[in-house]
């Protein structure tokens, strides 16, 4: 009955894939980035810088191993400095990739097909960056495997009543699932690359990775079932991961941490920052590789809308935190709020409100939602804002707890900064490699979006 209405709405939106494409052109265009187009000077420059930053991180981490945690700014009372701030920031960024690949698949949002592959890669690399921090923060990183329950000569087991051990399980399950989900999604496309590559080494490598995929109908049937089930499993998983990360704080009694709003507001914040990162990656990639036909205005708009919505949930979270500071009547909670507004880190809290709440409201304007440059800048602001949020939760809460005698200030050292900027470099270096070595857009899922893919009974 509402067909005419539906059509007009569809017509107003930009298409998911520009008209005029066939199975052949889609295959050609996406696989050419990997197989035939030579790497540009820009790619080498970008990869070179990212690689050097990665080396800087390795240097900082190497020096940390040599000297110990003392080279960082984290000290009592602020024992969780940059390491935990950056861990939470990175793992949050990863969440958007899973949201796009799993949750939007279950919701049948087919526009996701052109951005899910690199969003999943982003997840994987962000989780890799996140995973570094807890491992190097344990003090004796070579003993980080003690986190896992393995039979040992000491005769002890981990403390399963601690949220920190929950986090070990949540994050390692998440890393495993993200990697497998990504790889399973790649198999048919690896088959395409195997069949199209001309260099014998490329044929061999892609052929080995494709594992003999031949597109049989029976294989597709099992593949689709497995893929759907993986999406169904990844959906509660991704929500659980940031929930468990928030438990690291919420289970503790520190004012500013001990609150029940944390799980939903952490998850929303994770998706918020993740979509910002998706946009910061998608906007240059579509421009440089001429993929505007596949990553259209519609994708930018939709991502901007998700950012706007999750940003408002985050704003609600801040509002409830402030409200509870007053309404609970707990003087420490009230002081936490006062301290955020007027304490030594007030400037960070003001910047947080500006970056996460006020500036992103411009996304209500349609013109800005469709402008790549504006979206790129707003996404950057959101990423800064979400980093500040974690800084305020971790550092500001610890700096002013119950007793004035245990108050202190946190000053990050150059080693903190080198490690943080270094992980950004590592993330970008992995992204650069991914773009050149694997299809950045899922070729087989793009084929299903074409009108010729439709079959009548």
């Amino acid at each position, binding site marked *: 009955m509402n067909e005419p209405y539906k059509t007009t709405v569809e017509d107003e939106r930009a298409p998911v894939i520009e008209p005029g494409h*066939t*199975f*052949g052109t889609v*295959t050609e265009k996406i696989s050419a980035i990997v197989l035939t187009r030579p790497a540009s000077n820009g790619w080498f420059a970008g990869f070179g810088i990212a690689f050097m930053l990665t080396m800087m991180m390795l240097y900082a981490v190497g020096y940390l191993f040599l000297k110990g945690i003392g080279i960082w700014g984290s000290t009592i009372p602020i024992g969780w400095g940059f390491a935990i701030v950056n861990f939470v920031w990175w793992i949050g960024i990863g969440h958007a990739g899973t949201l796009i690949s799993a949750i939007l698949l279950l919701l049948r949002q087919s526009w996701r097909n052109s951005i899910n592959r690199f969003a999943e890669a982003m997840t994987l690399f962000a989780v890799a960056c996140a995973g570094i921090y807890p491992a190097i923060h344990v003090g004796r990183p070579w003993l980080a495997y003690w986190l896992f*329950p393995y039979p040992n000569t000491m*005769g*002890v*087991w*981990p*403390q*399963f*009543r601690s949220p920190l*051990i*929950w986090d070990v*399980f*949540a994050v390692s*399950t998440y890393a*495993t*699932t993200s990697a*497998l*989900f990504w790889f*399973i999604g790649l198999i*048919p496309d690896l*088959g*395409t690359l*195997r*069949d*199209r590559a001309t260099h014998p080494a490329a044929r061999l490598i892609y052929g080995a990775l494709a*594992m*003999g*995929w*031949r*597109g*049989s*109908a*029976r*294989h*597709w*049937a*099992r*593949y*689709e*079932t*497995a893929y759907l*089930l*993986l999406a169904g*499993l*990844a959906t*509660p*998983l991704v929500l*659980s991961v940031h929930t468990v990360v928030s*438990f690291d704080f919420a289970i503790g009694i520190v004012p500013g941490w001990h609150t029940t709003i944390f799980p939903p507001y952490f998850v929303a914040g994770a998706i918020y920052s993740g979509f910002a990162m998706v946009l910061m990656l998608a906007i240059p990639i579509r421009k440089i590789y001429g993929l505007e036909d596949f990553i259209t205005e519609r994708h930018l708009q939709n991502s901007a809308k998700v950012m706007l919505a999750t940003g408002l949930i985050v704003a609600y979270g801040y509002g409830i935190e402030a409200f509870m500071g007053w309404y609970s009547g707990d003087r420490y909670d009230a002081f936490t709020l006062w301290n955020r507004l007027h304490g030594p880190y007030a400037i960070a809290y003001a910047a947080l409100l500006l970056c996460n709440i006020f500036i992103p409201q411009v996304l209500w304007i349609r013109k800005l939602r469709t402008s790549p440059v504006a979206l790129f800048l707003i996404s950057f602001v959101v990423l800064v804002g979400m980093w500040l949020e974690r800084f305020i939760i971790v550092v500001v809460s610890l700096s002013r707890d119950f007793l004035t005698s245990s108050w202190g200030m946190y000053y990050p050292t150059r080693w903190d900064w080198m490690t943080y900027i270094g992980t950004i470099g590592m993330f970008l270096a992995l992204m650069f490699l991914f773009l050149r070595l694997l299809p950045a857009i899922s070729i*087989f*899922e793009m*084929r*299903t979006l074409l009108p*010729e*893919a439709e*079959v*009548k009974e």
Partner: protein
Amino acid sequence: MKRDPIYGIMAEFDSAQALVDAARHTHQAGYQKIDAYSPFPIEGLAEEIGFHHNRVPLVVLIGGIIGGLTGYLMQYWMAAVDYPINVGGKPLHSWPAFIVITFEMTILFSVLSAVFGMLALNGLPMPYHPVFNVPRFAMASKDRFFLIVFSSDPKYNPAGTRSFLEGLAPRSISEVPS
């Protein structure tokens, strides 16, 4: 045992619609051992060639149950039996605290069984397969659609099957050496 030198006869089609129609006709004509190849998943194609028992969900269910039990029993045994420590008088079998890891282990085992179960049921990885002997089959991962009747099919005979497939108006027909 000597292998049949011919693995089957393969017909090539231009569109997904043509492949689905051809698969239906071939299956209705009484051919049992057939397969269809496409560059993307086509809904209903597997049913047309007589594939009805998809056991992936069962594998995942079993994996998930094993994972959940492993997660819970592991924590119970470690925290209450093998290494009982009294922390602030909390019960040793403090089950609410064990739920998170039980959940994560359920997901982990389900995911592993979905991935490796699907690959195992599909017989992957498979380093050699006769269909790749047909040079045009390289297009099966791009924009062409293929239907094969295996030589092991009871109804198969080289001339008859070939002329049957020709009746489906394919773009080309090739014999697949094994």
